[in-house]
């Protein structure tokens, strides 16, 4: 692992391009090479060191404007980005757009142009429509970070998941480890982004859930995430959990019943919920994760959520560090030298 220096402490806008990082935007993980992912993880180490200081603040992004633009309600992701940006001394503007104005009033493109005219250097965007950050990146002159788009991607979540796994796994690596993502795979941007990062990391990745919530993923698994990067899809929860090193439960939303995808939450909990009994199929030192927000008693039993093997609050803390790392890395790449 190459050493990464602590962020520079220079004046306004002083962040130089980080070594080896050439991407202007972070939209999804499909394009990232393993060395790039490793660079993010190493930079995150440095940021965690900053978080451990009495005053967890460095001036790396002083004078930079980071605007969060959220078209979907979110507390933890938005606040995590805000804290991350403030820890780097950026000015932060939060814009929340009621979902109703997505279809009426100012267009998305106009909103992006307006935000840029108001001085935003970096745009953190959450949108209910898959792919919206790609359109933003085409319009916006600065850096775009995808904070979750539709069912498509949540790259910072997947990176913080990977970081947390490496922190907890015995040898600090997920390569060859059985990692299970359990729940509503179909609607999950977290699952999709984790497919890219975990297969890049060489994990033995399993996606598990009811067949109605796995639709389409068999095709993806058959094709492989990318050349030579297979993963497994199954609705057999026992087969998935057997000897798992990591289990991540995903939130089950009530709308899935209305759409006829699930009979009831009770039935889901009984058949797919992550209980202590089911967890006994996994390795004794299994790492239990959840991207939040949790429905305790549905996809995860309360005594599993609070089990010492659960790292759910670590995920939150690491989320800040990962987002600091990404803001820092992207801030060094401007439009003129854009590569990614």
């Amino acid at each position, binding site marked *: 692992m190459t050493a990464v220096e602590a962020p520079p402490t220079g004046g306004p806008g002083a962040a130089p391009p980080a070594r080896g990082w050439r991407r202007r935007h972070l939209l999804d993980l*499909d394009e990232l090479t393993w060395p790039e992912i490793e660079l993010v993880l190493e930079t995150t180490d440095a940021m965690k060191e900053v978080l451990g200081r009495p005053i967890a603040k460095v001036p790396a992004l002083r004078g930079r404007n980071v605007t969060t633009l959220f078209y979907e309600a979110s507390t933890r992701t938005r606040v995590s980005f805000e804290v991350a940006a403030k820890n780097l001394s950026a000015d932060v503007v939060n814009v929340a757009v009621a979902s109703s104005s*997505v*279809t009426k009033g100012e*267009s*998305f*493109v106009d909103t992006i142009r307006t935000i840029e005219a108001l001085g935003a250097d970096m745009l953190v965007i959450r*949108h209910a*429509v*898959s*792919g*919206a950050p*790609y*359109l933003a990146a*085409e319009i916006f002159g600065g850096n775009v970070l995808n904070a979750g*788009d*539709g*069912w*498509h*991607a949540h790259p910072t979540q997947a990176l913080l998941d990977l970081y947390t796994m490496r922190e907890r796994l015995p040898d600090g690596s997920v390569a060859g480890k059985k990692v299970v993502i359990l729940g509503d795979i179909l609607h999950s*941007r977290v699952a*999709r982004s984790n497919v890219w990062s975990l297969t890049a990391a060489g994990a033995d990745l399993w996606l598990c859930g009811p067949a109605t919530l796995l*639709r*389409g*993923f068999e*095709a*993806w698994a058959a*094709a*492989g*995430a*990318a*050349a030579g990067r297979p993963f497994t899809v199954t609705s057999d929860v026992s087969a998935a959990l057997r000897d798992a090193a990591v289990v991540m439960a995903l939130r089950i939303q009530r709308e899935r019943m209305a759409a006829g995808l699930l009979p009831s939450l009770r039935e889901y909990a009984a058949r797919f919920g992550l209980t202590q009994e089911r967890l006994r199929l996994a390795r004794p030192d299994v790492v239990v994760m959840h991207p939040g927000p949790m429905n305790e008693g549905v996809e995860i039993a309360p005594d599993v959520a609070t089990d010492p093997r659960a790292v759910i609050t670590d995920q939150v803390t690491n989320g800040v560090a990962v987002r600091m790392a990404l803001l820092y890395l992207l801030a060094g790449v401007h439009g003129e030298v854009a590569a990614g």
Partner: protein
Amino acid sequence: MTEGRGPTGTLQVGAVVERLAVGPAWLVDPATGRSGPGEILVEGGRLRAVDWLSGEAAAGVDERGIVVAPGFIDLHAHFREPGNEDAETIATGQAAAAHGGFTTVCLMPNTEPPVDEPSVVARIGAAAAASGSPVRVLVYGTVSVGRGGEQLAAIGELADAGVVGFSDDGASVRSAALLRNALLYAGMAGLPVVEHVEEASLCAGAEAHEGLVATVLGLRGWPAAAEAAVVARDLAVLEAVVEDEPRARLHLAHLSTREALDLVRAAKARGLPVSCEVTPHHIGLADEWLAGARRWAWEAVDETGRPRNPWADGALVARPYATACKVNPPLRSADHAVACLAALADGTADALATDHAPHTVVDKLVEFGLAANGISGIETALGVLLAAVDSGRIGLDRALAALTVGPALILGERLGRRVGLVEGEPADLVVFDRGARWRVTEDALASKGRNSPLLGRELPGRVLATVADGRLAYADPELVAGAVSTDGEAAGR
């Protein structure tokens, strides 16, 4: 090769073609099934001479150069007038059609107001006449009032007003019962019901063909089964209807799946009066274009015919989620596209129809899921088709038949003219240089709709001249001089 001569005064768009000679060139006449070297001469708007050449005179002429064919017929286009003239007008649509080699277009009735009563037919006819373009504009009427799927539109009156068929395009005829009545009622006039086949309950909010690409991109799936499900319903209804009304006919619009085409193939074998069309984008493009691939569909399947994984083989070259690729039915996986092309080649698909669907920037420069469905495609149809010919999966003669005699058979006498290189008839033909490539740019398009996924790409088959009903509909400003002699002297290649 004669020295370049500029188009003379007779080559004015809209004017009668007083004199136009082409050849030696490759003539294709799907009406007679004949193709080969020859020359044509247009005088006073009529096709005066069609001379097939052989021996010395034919030397060096092959189907890879200048081609002369009957004017193309598009069974399926949206010109947006009345109601959405920002996206297209009858006049701009005619200009686009002529640039694409089309001399006849059949417009879908989903305008505002829709074509559900005769006055709208008259309004469109008046706009077509006023434009000065000789491109013939035919229209469909709706099946139901306001395309609402409840009550039959004025089918009889619309038939009297000259419509060529009936369609609730944009959605399937909602109930099997209404479809049955529409087939019976339209059957009295000998006119087809043109079905947009899509089982709505399987497509709520759908954004992309359900499969690998939609899964990876997190787009709501549009399953192939939604198309075959309605085709099966419609064919069952048709089979019962023809016992009562043998003139009933069903035409299936823009089929996009192997399963639907298999059902049509079997129904035709049973003798059912069913026909169907496929579009250029469903034979040439695949769902992987949504992810950023830009190769032809036939290049996106492996030796076994299965779609390749564009994430695994480095095929992604463009930004994902391009709304120009969002269309209904959606771009399917490459195996379906190849099946559509095979159906066109074997005649299961009777016609290539463009489903030209221009949209404004306002409706397309938005988030993918909120973007309007549709591809502006009447000007690029020939190029895509010729690329398919170049792939070896369909012959040039069959490809051009799908743009001429195929749609003509479906229109029957309502086409109002003979199709073919017929001496003495008003000239209705297209001249294109198959070997000349042109770049699809916004400036190169006559349509107001710039929503083409092919923007920036080079296509084979530059149209040099389109003559409709004896009048010039389009002439290439640069190439017509060198390739098409306007003084009767044969121009070489």
